[in-house]
């Protein structure tokens, strides 16, 4: 077999696997804009299901966005300084702290949700507000921000850059803002996209923590599949895709770019 033949075979195989995954998704999206899914495309295309979703579930979309944005801000404020300190102290302590921060990713979302309910469930107001869900999201997404920024910090000799800036008279905060932050831009950006995307799509934790008035998009989506007709749930999924695919593409683009 020639190299070219092997390559073509591998390509066909990859495309087949991809289509196995993508076709159901595509059909689902298609169902969202079909008049009647059980009749098929013959019944015609329509946007009425999309409008119905926006009518019924606009709050969930809105809440998901609010939580994602707030989660992003929180992880930026907590995560960037944390990564900086970890990179500065280095050594075993730094690694131990890093492992602790990453722990929530390994633990099942349901377990984290239960833990939160057990400890903080007593605070009625907190428990029934969207802040409760936000806390879960921050726990889950913070490691991604920290890791992302830490990776960039570890690969640049930022200590020497800081010493250079200090030798020119720059005090700590000036150095941090003019030298450290601009040089970890890539890490912050990549981390931000990841946090935002993860928050929008988060289900496990949110499902356990939600109340009827604090439903996020994925929770509403599960609801609609359980209680609404297929076309409505599919339209809902379509909206979700439209929100999330640009983010995913952005993450892909950033991870490829060499800085």
């Amino acid at each position: 077999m020639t190299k070219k033949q092997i390559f073509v075979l591998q390509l066909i195989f990859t495309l087949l696997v991809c289509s196995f995954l993508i076709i159901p998704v595509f059909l689902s999206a298609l169902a969202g804009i079909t008049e009647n899914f059980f009749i098929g495309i013959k019944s015609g295309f329509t946007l009425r299901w999309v409008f119905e979703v926006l009518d019924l579930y606009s709050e969930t979309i809105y809440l998901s966005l609010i939580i994602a944005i707030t989660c992003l801000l929180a992880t930026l404020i907590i995560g960037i300084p944390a990564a900086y300190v970890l990179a500065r102290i280095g050594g075993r302590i730094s690694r131990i702290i890093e492992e602790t921060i990453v722990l929530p990713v390994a633990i099942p979302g349901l377990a984290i949700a239960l833990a939160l309910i057990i400890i903080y469930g007593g605070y009625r107001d907190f428990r029934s507000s969207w802040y409760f869900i936000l806390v879960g999201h921050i726990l889950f997404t913070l490691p991604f921000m920290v890791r992302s920024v830490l990776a960039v910090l570890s690969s640049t000799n930022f200590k020497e850059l800081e010493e250079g800036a200090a030798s020119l008279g720059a005090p700590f905060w000036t150095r941090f803002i003019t030298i450290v932050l601009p040089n970890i831009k890539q890490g912050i950006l990549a981390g931000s996209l990841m946090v935002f995307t993860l928050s929008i799509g988060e289900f496990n934790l949110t499902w356990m923590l939600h109340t009827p008035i604090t439903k996020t998009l994925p929770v509403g989506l599960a609801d609609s599949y359980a209680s609404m007709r297929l076309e409505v749930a599919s339209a809902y999924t379509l909206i979700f895709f439209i929100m999330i695919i640009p983010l995913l593409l952005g993450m892909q683009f950033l991870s490829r770019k060499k800085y």
Partner: protein
Amino acid sequence: MQKGNTSIDLISCGKTFKDGTRALNKLNLNIKGGETVVLLGPSGCGKTTLLRIIAGLEEPDDGGQVLFNKENVTKLLIEKRNVGMVFQSYALFPNMNVKENIGYGLKVRKLDTKQIDDRVSEMLNMMSISDLSFRTIDQLSGGQRQRVALARAIAVRPRVLLLDEPLTALDAILRDRLRGEIDSLLRSLEITAIYVTHDQSEAMALGDRIVVMSDGKISQIGTPRDIYFHPENEFVADFIGTINRISGNNLKKLVSVEGQELLFRPEDIEVVEKNISHLTGIVKASFFLGEKTRLIVNYNSTEQLSVEGKFKKEYKIGSEIYLKFNLETSITLPN
């Protein structure tokens, strides 16, 4: 340019790191305003630690003091000491272009835009890098980065210039050329400069005085000539240039005292005719270096000497060679 009259005094400065390594034993050092002092020594001798203590990047152990113009700056952080520093890997800021890098220290000092522009242009001209103004750091060659690093350090008109092995990362030809440029720069600036290197020819070329260091201690301080012609101990004699050790027993024609060991530089051993020679040897290796030739000569079957000179004649390996020594050129270590 500001006339450098900042003297530096180090009193009882030592440094032990958190993990217990004793990088520097307590030492004293006085540097006159305007002079260029080179800290010379092998890796691990403490020269970089000493430089960093002067800079303010490290604090000396308890009891150590650093004085600039007799003013105690020991507790001052580097950002308050008004020094200019050139790092071994230059530490240029990747998020800024050349102009912005050079102007950074001035921006931090809140000079107005026109002042910054003028000073940066002055620096660009001085270092002959005006055409690189808008390049980013990754678009510069090693030599260019070096020049930017220098320009950036001098732009703030520091009272002291500190250079940490700035030429080590460059190839030999570039190093030679830049060494000359740095030399004329330091002379024209008349600034107090401290230069760290492990390369002794660099040290000899640039230093008004050289501080030879080893194992965290100062071995000798002196002018290049002092160090070369009058080393005060074994280490300095060995480290600077090459030194030949030969027992007096082998030079019976020359010395009468038995058991004495004599030290000679390779260029002070003459190759002569057999009848006026003091020692016969066999040529073991021959290196033609262009302006001179270096011969490794065996005698007494196991002993070796390094002989240098402008030999037009080629000495074949394995051939006999006749050497003459002059007691006046031998080096005596004080005891």
